[in-house]
């Protein structure tokens, strides 16, 4: 990998992605070999909005590599409240750490912040924008369960605002995949994402119903449809209800189907699926640690 910063899944080539996933596989297979790999390394955590899981997962990753964290803490107790710019804050933190993870509510914040620092900066989510480590752990999970070549995947739910979906769909275009997008009319893929997928030479198949393509799928990636997207509660219930799945829904699916979800879920995947062979979403969440370890290892110079 030849990147100083990881701000967007779009910057990652197929060989970049494979380097991270291969390393993650090695780490998962032999974690003890990596336990002192980055002894003394400090990872700066700059979380301008709460995200317990992303933060815990990065903390676990650097500690399992022998390093530690320096945490900016919650925004209300830091200098941010005093009106300091992000550009200044990140330049200060640069002096405290060997790499930094930034989560920030504004889109493009990671790209901007990376222009001000020389240590590796990883985007831990920038508003409705990018969340590249989520994409990498999604890809790792898909590769482990279904393989990334000759893959038919259905991505369902809120495709308009769901950033995990946008990054994943883009990254999948570098592999041999057929992508189906299933959503209500009002939550279809936005224009800039369709533009990108089109530019990548991907054929986009959009559906409003899961039934017609479910039997052909190797992976079904479900995302949450949020209440805030609808003018009123009854409209939300009506629409969201059509995109919930349970064990009965999956009777038409292949036995080998992998069901994924970035979590947290509300009721888009019924609990009766949890104990079936289809359910892969908890494994997916756990994969966040070896994948982030692999990325940190490569960015901190463990590639040679």
């Amino acid at each position, binding site marked *: 990998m030849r990147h100083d910063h990881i701000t967007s899944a779009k910057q990652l080539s197929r060989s970049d992605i494979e380097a991270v996933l291969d390393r993650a596989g090695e780490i998962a297979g032999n974690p003890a070999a990596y336990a002192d790999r980055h002894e003394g390394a400090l990872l700066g955590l700059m979380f301008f909005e709460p995200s317990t899981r992303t933060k815990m997962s990065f903390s676990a990753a650097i500690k399992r590599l022998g390093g530690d964290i320096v945490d900016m803490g919650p925004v209300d107790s830091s200098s941010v409240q005093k009106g300091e710019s992000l550009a200044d804050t990140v330049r200060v933190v640069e002096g405290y750490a060997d790499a930094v993870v930034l989560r920030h*509510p*504004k889109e*493009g914040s990671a*790209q901007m912040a990376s222009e001000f620092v020389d240590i590796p900066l990883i985007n831990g989510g920038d508003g*409705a924008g990018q969340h590249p480590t989520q994409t990498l752990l999604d890809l790792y999970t898909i590769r482990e369960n279904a393989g990334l070549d000759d893959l038919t995947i259905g991505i369902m739910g809120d495709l308009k605002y769901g950033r995990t979906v946008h990054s994943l769909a883009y990254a999948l275009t570098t592999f041999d995949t057929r992508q189906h997008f299933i959503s209500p009319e009002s939550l279809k893929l936005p224009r800039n994402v369709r533009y990108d997928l089109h530019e990548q030479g991907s054929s986009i198949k959009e559906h409003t119903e899961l039934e017609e393509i479910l039997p052909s799928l190797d992976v079904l990636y479900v995302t949450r449809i949020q209440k805030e997207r609808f003018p009123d509660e009854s409209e939300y219930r009506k629409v969201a209800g059509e995109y919930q799945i349970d064990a009965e829904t999956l009777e038409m699916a292949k036995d080998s189907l992998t069901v994924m979800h970035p979590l947290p879920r509300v009721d888009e995947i019924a609990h009766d699926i949890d104990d079936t062979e289809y359910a892969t979403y908890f494994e997916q969440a756990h994969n966040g640690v070896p994948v982030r370890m692999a990325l940190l290892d490569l960015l901190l110079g463990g590639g040679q």
Partner: protein
Amino acid sequence: MTDQELRVSKIENGTVIDHIAGGQALNVLAILGINGSRGETVSVGMNVPSDRLGRKDVVKVEDRELSQSELDVLSLIAPAATINIIRGYDVVEKNRVERPSSVTGVLECPNQHCITAEDEPIDTQFEVLDDGVRCVYCDTIIRESIATQIKV
């Protein structure tokens, strides 16, 4: 003076921007920051019949030659424009505008959640696409409304 003479009356020194899409002349002036306040002589012809465009706008600015970065931005809303540099009543240079690969600091991102809308020490930057521009920070694409995103 006939209508024809009024339209094509020559200027001694300056720039004639021809073949602007009909109705875009005022946006062109806005891009160039020309509002008459500096006392420059500006003539605007709007919806002039044109063989090439049907209707075109023409802008003449006296005693001013446009820079490359001004031409770059101009290309976004007036891709067919021709630029004539006039010295001593003669056209000394005739150029077509060329689309740049990106424009910096000229357009405002329409996405209110974009980091460029915050008080940060950066310029906006847009990658120029075949049929629009895209914010390099938040990926928002502007197509039809480029002129309204020009910073004033």
